[in-house]
């Protein structure tokens, strides 16, 4: 059947589309299944689930994936009964539907990989689906085998009497086309009976006045003729008789016989194609139903749009700045107003364009209920997953990068966060664990919380292990928060046993790296015995950044606003130099390491002493605060992130670049790399690398 008549290129393309579609449908399916509750009638949900399964089945049929069709068919049949209220969604049915969703996904995977699923695969679930239908009226109709033609060969021909009802025209069937179709089966003689045709005045356009008596000479079986009239059998009088039996039948009026020529002869048929008045003036309001319609657009096109709008933003800023620099003469205020309007519009346009790339996080969240189910079942725990803020939107590229870390964190929470049922009972807690996954917008960031009500981090044990492994020196006296941070150390697992659930070697350090790569941060808060909360702060988009422009010497740099805690102009007494060239500032009793941007980046003519400049307190992803010494703050601005690496190599300490209003390039500082850069030996060999570099050293070193 099906696809075999398509060329292999087309088929490959259709198949690609099919699997893309399956992926979307399966995500939707999983989410909808997760939202079902026993003994409730979520008709809309069931309809959507039905449609998803149905679409997969239809596509699978087209590609001859019989195993997939068979399973989807049974699945769909039960869903059909459920939505019709012929079967009930009880505690037995719901898990079965969820398993069926899993089997369906696995079967899609199998065929996508070009394999054939084991016959037995999913058979238990299918049996279960079928058994659940037994109670309802009738089981699933089996997928019928192709109909065999009844009679192999017919007699020499047939006599056919065809008298359409007016209904036939109302369904937009056309007798002429059917007669033409008959003609392809053999030699056709037809006679048209016009006797019922009224005079013109009495002619109704939607009435049927004509009938035909035809003789078809053919060796085709009767079924072939019946098939021609398949659509109209209830809308006409139809007699199909083998010719032998028809010899002396209907002796009456056989008017002049005409043989239809291949080219359409204008047989005088009632004119069914004439437009008719609407018989059902039903309300049209319904068709205006509030539907958020959508189109598919290639991501590359959106990216181009984003880039161009970025250019527009820059050009607008440049124009405005140049205008401001010139004196505002008479009439200038109007122009100024125009620039302000332009700025607002440009900003709005940019937001609109960025919004195109935004997608709700639910596409990742939707995978989590299943994950929790599977992992907790494997571990013999009962864990409930509560989710909120699934509709929170974030850039598509961010979504893609978020899936892995989030999966890992949820898995960790079930595995390591939530205690065993016995431990929970012993601790006087509810035997069932709960994980709360939430998302919300905060400024230009998305905040994701993964919170469990498990045992919390055992700092004593964690520190002991860290010392055992040499991550922390034995005489270190880290604070509680610093100990918590240790779970992000490379290769560190707090679990006593490395279970197969969380896997080996992949720890929270990988999660943190992923999040940092997205320009985000991850933090942990934990209370022993009460639970642990991870907070992910991730920029909504990788294309723009809220930045603080700072001046260092002649250069301007941009610090990501999300990292900035505050900026202070320190007193001389707040700064203390330590051995090894370190400098710290005492800020409200807390000692913060200072990093001079001018020294790290080798910028000449910068302010040398922190008390003559500014200290911008920034927080690194691991929660460490450092003070970045700059000359002054210029201002806050949303900037479009440009890659340096398109045309050059990565530059240490710089995460990207942007173009300022004056057309100049400004570099975006990579906060995470600053301490490391400050620690490394000076770029050019100096006699004494331990000594704090002096301004002259810097100057000697500048290109």
């Amino acid at each position: 059947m099906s696809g075999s008549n398509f060329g292999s290129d087309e088929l490959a393309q259709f198949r690609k589309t099919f699997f893309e579609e399956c992926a979307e449908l399966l995500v939707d399916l999983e989410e909808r299944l997760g939202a079902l509750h026993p003994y409730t009638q979520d008709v809309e949900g069931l309809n959507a689930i039905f449609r998803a399964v149905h679409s997969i089945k239809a596509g699978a049929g087209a590609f001859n994936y019989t195993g997939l069709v068979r399973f989807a068919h049974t699945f769909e049949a039960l869903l059909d009964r459920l939505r019709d209220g012929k079967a009930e969604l009880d505690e037995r049915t719901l898990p079965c539907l969820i398993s069926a969703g899993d089997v369906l996904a696995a079967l899609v995977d199998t065929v996508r990989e070009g394999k054939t699923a084991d016959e037995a695969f999913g058979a238990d679930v299918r049996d279960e689906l079928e058994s659940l239908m037994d109670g309802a009226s009738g089981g699933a109709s089996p997928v019928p085998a192709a109909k065999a033609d009844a009679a192999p060969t017919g007699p020499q021909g047939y006599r056919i009497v065809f008298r359409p009802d007016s209904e036939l025209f109302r369904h937009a069937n056309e007798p002429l086309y059917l007669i033409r179709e008959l003609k392809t089966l053999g030699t056709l003689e037809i006679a048209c009976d016009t006797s019922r045709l009224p005079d013109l005045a009495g002619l109704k356009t939607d009435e049927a006045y004509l009938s035909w008596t035809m003789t078809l000479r053919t060796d085709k079986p009767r079924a072939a003729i019946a098939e021609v009239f398949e659509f109209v059998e209830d809308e006409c009088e139809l007699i199909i008789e083998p010719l032998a039996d028809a010899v002396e039948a209907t002796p009456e009026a056989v008017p002049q016989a005409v043989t239809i020529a291949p080219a359409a002869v204008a047989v005088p048929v009632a004119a069914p194609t004439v437009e008719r008045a609407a018989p059902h003036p039903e309300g049209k309001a319904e068709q205006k139903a509030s539907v958020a319609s959508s189109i598919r657009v290639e991501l590359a096109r959106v990216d181009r749009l984003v880039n161009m709008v970025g250019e527009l933003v820059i050009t607008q800023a440049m124009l405005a700045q140049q205008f401001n620099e010139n004196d505002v003469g008479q009439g200038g205020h109007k122009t100024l107003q125009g620039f302000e309007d332009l700025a607002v519009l440009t900003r709005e346009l940019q937001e609109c364009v960025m919004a195109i790339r935004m997608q709700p996080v639910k596409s990742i969240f939707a995978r989590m209920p299943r994950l929790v189910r599977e992992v907790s079942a494997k571990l013999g725990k009962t864990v409930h997953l509560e989710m909120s803020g699934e509709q929170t939107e974030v850039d598509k590229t961010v979504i893609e990068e978020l899936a892995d870390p989030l999966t890992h964190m949820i898995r960790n929470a079930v595995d390591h966060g939530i205690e065993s049922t016995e431990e929970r009972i012993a601790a006087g807690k509810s035997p069932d664990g709960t994980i709360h996954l939430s998302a919300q917008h905060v400024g230009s960031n998305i905040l994701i919380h993964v919170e469990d009500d498990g045992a919390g981090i055992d700092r004593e044990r964690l520190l002991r292990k860290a010392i055992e492994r040499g991550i922390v020196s034995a005489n270190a006296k880290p604070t509680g928060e610093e100990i918590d941070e240790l779970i992000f150390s490379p290769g560190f697992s707090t679990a006593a046993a490395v279970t197969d659930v969380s896997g080996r070697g992949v720890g929270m350090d990988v999660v943190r790296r992923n999040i940092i790569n997205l320009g985000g941060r991850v933090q942990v808060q934990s209370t022993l015995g009460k639970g642990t909360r991870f907070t992910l702060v991730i920029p909504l988009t990788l294309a723009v950044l809220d930045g603080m422009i700072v001046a260092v010497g002649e250069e301007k740099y941009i610090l990501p606003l999300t990292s900035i805690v505050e900026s202070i102009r320190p007193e001389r007494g707040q700064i203390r130099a330590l051995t090894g060239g370190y400098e710290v500032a005492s800020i409200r009793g807390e000692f913060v390491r200072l990093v001079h941007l001018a020294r790290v980046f080798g910028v000449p003519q910068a302010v040398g002493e922190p008390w003559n400049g500014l200290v911008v307190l920034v927080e690194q992803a691991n929660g460490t605060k450092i003070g970045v010494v700059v000359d002054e703050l210029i201002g806050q601005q949303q900037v479009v992130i440009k890659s340096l690496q398109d045309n050059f190599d990565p530059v240490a300490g710089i995460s990207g670049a942007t173009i300022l209003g004056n057309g100049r390039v400004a570099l975006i500082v990579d906060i995470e790399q600053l301490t490391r850069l400050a620690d490394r030996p000076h770029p050019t060999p100096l006699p004494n690398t331990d000594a704090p570099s002096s301004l002259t050293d810097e100057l000697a070193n500048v290109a």
Partner: protein
Amino acid sequence: MAKRILTVDDSKTMRDMVSYTLKGAGFEVVEAEDGVRALTVLQSGKVDLIITDINMPNMDGVTLVKRVRSQPSHAATPILILTTESGEDKKAAGKAAGATGWIVKPFAPDKLLQVVNKVCPA
């Protein structure tokens, strides 16, 4: 002028296959992914045939058929509904709503053309 066919299906795979087959036979094809969008297409111009799926979000195929039949401009436009083999009740529902005929999924391209030919020859 080539006859214009509107294919309505929420599955892009299906739309692609129908569309490819029909274009190959010289038809002009327009696509819509559900009933509501199909009506929008119809408002913007006449088509010679509508081929619609039944199970679709926003507006299903049977409702679409009823709506189309109620519009003067397309009351006499043939409509084929796409059903699966087990969909006898769907055929009946489609017919009752005013559909011209049906196509059983999955279909071979020549079968599709054969059916189309019966209600809207190229």
